[in-house]
């Protein structure tokens, strides 16, 4: 990662969240990882002035209460949040989910592989990309 701000993971499945946590640890990614369970909690976290704004959001699509697409609709209209890059991390290969996500300005769309070692490679690629790419600062 280009900087040391936190990464926000929005994921309702405990085991999927564990997979990201493990991958971040296995890859020695130093950014703190914050995990919330759905879109509403993500907005709450992002709008709480006590929290540092993340440099990257990893977003699941199928979630209870507020799903990933609904979250994007709100976050991308919010001036303080719209520039934070969002990478979708999902099992959905459905075209409509990809269309909706890119229409709403996501920076990437990754399908979670079933195999953990392949999953680590996905996280490695995301980390590497955002090490080379510029990330807009939080202000």
């Amino acid at each position, binding site marked *: 990662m280009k900087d040391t701000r936190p990464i926000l993971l929005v994921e309702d499945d405990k085991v999927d969240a564990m997979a990201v946590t493990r991958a971040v640890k296995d890859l020695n990614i130093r950014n703190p990882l914050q995990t919330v369970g759905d879109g509403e909690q993500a907005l709450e976290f992002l709008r709480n002035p006590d929290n540092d704004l993340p440099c990257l959001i990893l977003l699941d699509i199928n979630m209870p209460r507020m799903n990933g697409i609904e979250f994007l609709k709100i976050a991308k209209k919010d001036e303080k949040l719209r520039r934070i890059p969002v990478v979708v991390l999902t*099992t959905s290969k459905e075209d409509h989910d990809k269309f909706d996500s890119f229409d709403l300005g996501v920076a990437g769309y990754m399908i*979670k592989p*079933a195999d953990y070692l392949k999953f680590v490679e996905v996280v490695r690629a995301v980390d590497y990309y955002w090490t080379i790419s510029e990330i807009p600062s939080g202000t």
Partner: protein
Amino acid sequence: MNEEGRQPEQMLSDDPTDLETRCADLKAQLEASNNELKEFAYIISHDLRAPLRAVSQLAGWIANDYSGVLDEEGKDLINLLLSRIDRMEGLIQGILEYSRIGRVKEKGQRVDLNSLLGDVVDTISPPEGIQVIVETQLPTIMFEYEHAEQMFQHLVDNAVKFMDKPEGEIRIRAEDGGDHWKFSVADNGPGIDPTSHDKIFQIFQTLSPRDESESTGIGLTLVKKIVDTSGGDIWVESEVGAGTTFFLTLPKKGDDG
């Protein structure tokens, strides 16, 4: 279809607008059940797979993180767990492929079976000693490529997988039957008892214990469904000890030749 004793000709002689309404009703019903099937395939592919993936990852992490604590027996149990998860994945994949045939209206294309078969044999890469011999020139047919591939892939793969002799032979032939092509895939393997000939085409039926061959029992069911949807026929001639020959016919379409 025959309602309350009405004769079919009576139903047909009804007012034509009546007939149109019936057709529209039937079409709507068909569309509804098709959508249901699509939904079902999605539930299977997504909702059933998610927890399975989680189980697989957790088992893998236990094996990894506790490798120093687990004794041999514990490791064996985890490996069994992982192999059953793979089997379940295979079954789910099978159901998905099965539900896809005929549901998605694929457009046919010209498929040169000679080159297709070469690719299929390369993919299977039979062990040394097993020969796949194409005895006749194979035709180019109008077919959905993936379906043609699946048909020959499963037939040849089965012959290779169950071969019980060090010198195995699998012979493939095509015959021009006028309005159709007739293909055969023959092997000198163990053969199949005639009482099981119907059973092998049923979904998830296997003739050998699952622990001996990691076979889901979907292959021949898929082949049969592909052949059926294209208006052809498939049957088997075999006896224990006498090898097995699968025959299939496919009706010719416009561009065949």
